[in-house]
């Protein structure tokens, strides 16, 4: 009698073990699904669900039942034997039954409620969209106003500083060059006439000064020239940098191992100059006979916003890691190493190469970092975006630099 009532109850009933195996069903559920109820026993309860419902069960319902032991008014979709989608509401209770844990569930088919809910959901979505657009708009407006003022101030400051800087660098480079050329010329002439050791020192100092001025000129060049972005093959420009390098050092001084670096949008001349300086540093500051350099390349995503808080735009970057086995440096100085004319080691170099590299990565909306172990190695890591368009440097920079 009770069993019959249970079979004919106006709701579907099912219970299953923790592993999902169905252990009891009633006739109503069988007729909802249009499957003989005996055929349901022993099957996995998941086989009654549509795929989206299966995902929902795995990510939400089953974990909930496992810890909370019950769930009410859950909306799911059953799949009948002839492929019909049946929206149902579920109540479930997990409990011990004959020394095993079972979950006992009832289903009510709710096609009308579903229609009603669909409309509710649609209406809520429209409201949500309108609200979020409105809220976003208000927030964006306020932020824009704030930033425009700040930008205006900064633009003014930058442009006046830039003008001064430009004048200054022109004075330094052009106006120094001519007297320097003369000093060099007369020093050489004097050297022919007298053999004083002082002359040797004078000549060396003048040569050093020439190197500084040339370096400064490169730096000024990087500041003033408009960036010419095009697709650049990094592997090819490494080769160019190496051939440039072998004009100044013995070819055997450099032993380079590298990944396929790939290509990106950038200024070819600048990137080549950067790689040249990185390799040149490795050779200059080598420890033994040879500089052993490894260049690794990884493609990854990074937030393009670094100054503005709370903004996210994940863009593809190439990460280049240039590691040598040279004399290294104390990581305490890793933030100072990129300063213009900063020298961490006496002897070789003007302290210019890494400053130029920093300038170049900046021109590409990239980042450069240095890490070192004294006496062991130096690693320079550079992140360069694959595409320049997202950074709008083409539009922004020349205007700012040439007011």
């Amino acid at each position, binding site marked *: 009698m009770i069993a019959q009532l249970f079979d004919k109850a106006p709701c579907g009933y099912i219970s299953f073990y923790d592993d999902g195996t169905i252990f009891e069903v009633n006739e109503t559920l069988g007729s909802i699904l249009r499957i003989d109820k005996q055929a349901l026993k022993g099957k996995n309860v998941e086989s009654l669900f549509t*795929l989206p419902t299966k995902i929902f069960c*795995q*990510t939400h319902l089953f974990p909930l039942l496992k810890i909370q*032991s*019950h769930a009410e008014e859950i*909306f799911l979709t059953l799949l009948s034997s002839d492929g019909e989608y049946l929206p149902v509401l579920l109540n479930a209770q997990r409990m011990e039954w004959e020394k095993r844990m079972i979950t006992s569930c009832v289903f009510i088919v709710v096609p009308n409620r579903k229609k009603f*809910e669909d409309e509710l959901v649609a209406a809520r979505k429209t409201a949500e969209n309108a609200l979020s657009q409105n809220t976003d708009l208000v927030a964006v407006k306020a932020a824009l106003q704030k930033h425009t003022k700040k930008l205006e101030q900064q633009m003014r400051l930058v442009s006046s500083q830039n003008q001064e800087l430009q004048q200054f660098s022109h004075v330094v480079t052009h106006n120094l060059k001519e007297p320097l050329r003369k000093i060099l010329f007369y020093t050489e002439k004097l050297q022919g006439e007298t053999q004083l050791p002082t002359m040797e020192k004078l000549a060396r100092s003048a040569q050093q000064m020439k190197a500084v001025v040339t370096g400064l000129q490169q730096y000024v060049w990087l500041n003033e020239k408009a960036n010419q972005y095009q697709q650049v093959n990094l592997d090819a420009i490494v080769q160019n940098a190496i051939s440039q390098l072998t004009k100044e050092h013995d070819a055997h001084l450099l032993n380079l191992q590298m990944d396929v670096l790939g290509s990106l949008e950038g200024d070819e001349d600048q990137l080549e100059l950067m790689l040249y300086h990185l390799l040149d540093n490795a050779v200059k500051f080598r420890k033994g006979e040879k500089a052993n350099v490894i260049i690794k390349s990884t493609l*990854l995503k990074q937030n393009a916003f670094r100054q503005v808080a709370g903004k996210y735009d994940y863009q593809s970057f190439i990460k280049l890691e240039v590691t040598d086995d040279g004399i290294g440096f104390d990581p305490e100085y890793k933030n100072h190493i990129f300063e213009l004319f900063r020298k961490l080691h006496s002897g070789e170099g003007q302290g210019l190469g890494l400053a130029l590299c920093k300038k170049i990565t900046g021109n590409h909306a990239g980042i450069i970092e240095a890490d070192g172990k004294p006496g062991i190695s130096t690693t320079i890591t550079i992140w360069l975006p694959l595409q320049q368009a997202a950074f709008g440097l083409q539009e922004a920079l020349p205007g700012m630099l040439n007011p």
Partner: protein
Amino acid sequence: MVQQFLVRNNVKDFGNGSQPMLFAHGFGCDQHMWRFVTPAFEDDYRIILFDYVGSGKSDYASYNPERYQSLQGYAQDILDICEALDLQNVILVAHSVSSMIGLLAAIEKPSRFSHLIMVGPSPCYINKDGYIGGFEHKDIEGLLETMEKNYIGWANFLAPQIMGNADRPELGQELTDSFCSTDPVIASQFAKATFFSDNREDLSKLKTPSLILQCAEDIIAPSQVGDYLHQNLPNSTLKQMKATGHCPQLSEPGETIQLIQDYLGVTA
């Protein structure tokens, strides 16, 4: 600044060991998913639990739709926590979508992580270009719809009631509270970030050794996906579990613990 991350992500930091084990929950749940597993590691490791921003008891005001529309934003949560606690040599135990979030974090900062333990991972859920992820686009749309429908009945779904955990009443209460606070808009965006993600091209970049725990009959991460991961992840170990479904840490915590211990015992 960095200390804010600990509040933002509801970070719990306990245990008697020194090497950190960071447990990352998946989509649809929060740090409570690990409660049957962490006691086994408390004596030997420093345990760190957290909720992603927008899940559990995290700070919802910190949710930024731009940031969390991709798994990168979630990976930043992991890196933020590592930075705030200055964690090194981290064993990252990651469930479901967190496996790929952890992968992105470990690719970005390889020096922080010693091992990546992936529970039910998948690099791509959608079938495409001959790859079998298990789902079509429309299945995910269906999931989003199911989730939305259940937010209508949210109040009932999550009503704080006294549960069947007579011996540990606080357990059910806590969970209800945290599930309760899940925001439907955020949950839907997390679902999209999860199920529309495709990290197959990132797999070869992982340098950290990894363990893949593959469940039986897991529709979310089927066994061919586990095989695909094992073939494409350098230095990975694949373990087939007896546990069925997608949450072995709940259904078979003992087996889950044993496999993690075996792996750490062998590789540590």
